[in-house]
């Protein structure tokens, strides 16, 4: 029994659009439907180019298509953020360090990226 998201919702979005796997393969510039099939079954991870092509053809973001993967990566990054904050808190305090800690704390607390990420150093 699982409450986790599926790794990918590519098949759902593709079927919602009414496109067949062969249509998708053609739009990806592939010969057969095996490539999209493998992506739908999550046995293969698409390249960045193909991911962006899915986003264009299905009209949904990569994060929505790979919602389960996004959720997993989100958890992992936030867990690492916790470790990074603990490490930074033990360093000699400077203005820059405080900003980094605040940013990392934001990563830890938010459900995703901080709403207003600080501007990068010029």
């Amino acid at each position, binding site marked *: *029994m*699982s*409450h*986790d998201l*599926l790794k990918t*919702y590519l*098949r*759902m979005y593709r*079927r919602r659009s009414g496109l067949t796997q062969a249509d998708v393969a053609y739009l990806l510039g592939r010969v057969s439907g095996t490539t999209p099939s493998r992506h739908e079954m999550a046995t293969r991870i698409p390249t960045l180019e193909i991911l962006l092509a899915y986003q264009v053809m299905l009209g949904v973001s990569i994060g929505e298509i790979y919602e389960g993967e996004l959720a997993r990566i989100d958890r992992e990054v936030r867990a690492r953020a916790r470790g990074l904050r603990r490490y930074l808190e033990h360093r000699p305090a400077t203005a820059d360090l405080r900003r980094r800690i605040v940013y990392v704390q934001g990563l830890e607390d938010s459900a995703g990226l901080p709403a207003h990420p600080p501007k990068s150093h010029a």
Partner: protein
Amino acid sequence: MRKPSPNHYRLLSIDPSPAGFGFAIIEGGYRLVEWGVARVWSTNDQEFLARVESRIDRFRPSAVVLLDRSADRRESGVLNRWRLLQPYCTSRYLPVFLVSGSLIKEVFRSTGSTKSQIASAIAEEFPELEGRLPATRKAWMSEGEQMNVFDAVSFIVALRHKSPQSKGSNNASLGRP
């Protein structure tokens, strides 16, 4: 330990037919993730269960929803397959929800309670199923196999109405048949 998120509560609904079974997978009560008809022409029950198993393995549902046929006294292949499903799901530690036909009719009372009317109401809620909507059949015509998909979706929709608090953050009642 991660808390289970009710928004990701995935239900697999199965409607056995003489030619296999129709199925639907709905997540969070409102997102139709997968649907279709699995054809099992063989009378071999193991093959039937293997096809069910492949859906369970792939989509890892939180529970299975079936039509309540416990009062059905007519012996048929469909009923035999239905009887196989409950112990099988239990062996996979999957809770089974049984939805009565009367509940389905009650839920769809406003849209009309014939199977065709229910299918139309479902296609309205899930436009991705519009293309599968069977043509209205005459009395002498047999039912189209796609109707099993609509039946499977109707079980979950009926269950959702039975547990109205399932919308949003609380799906707890769905976890306790």
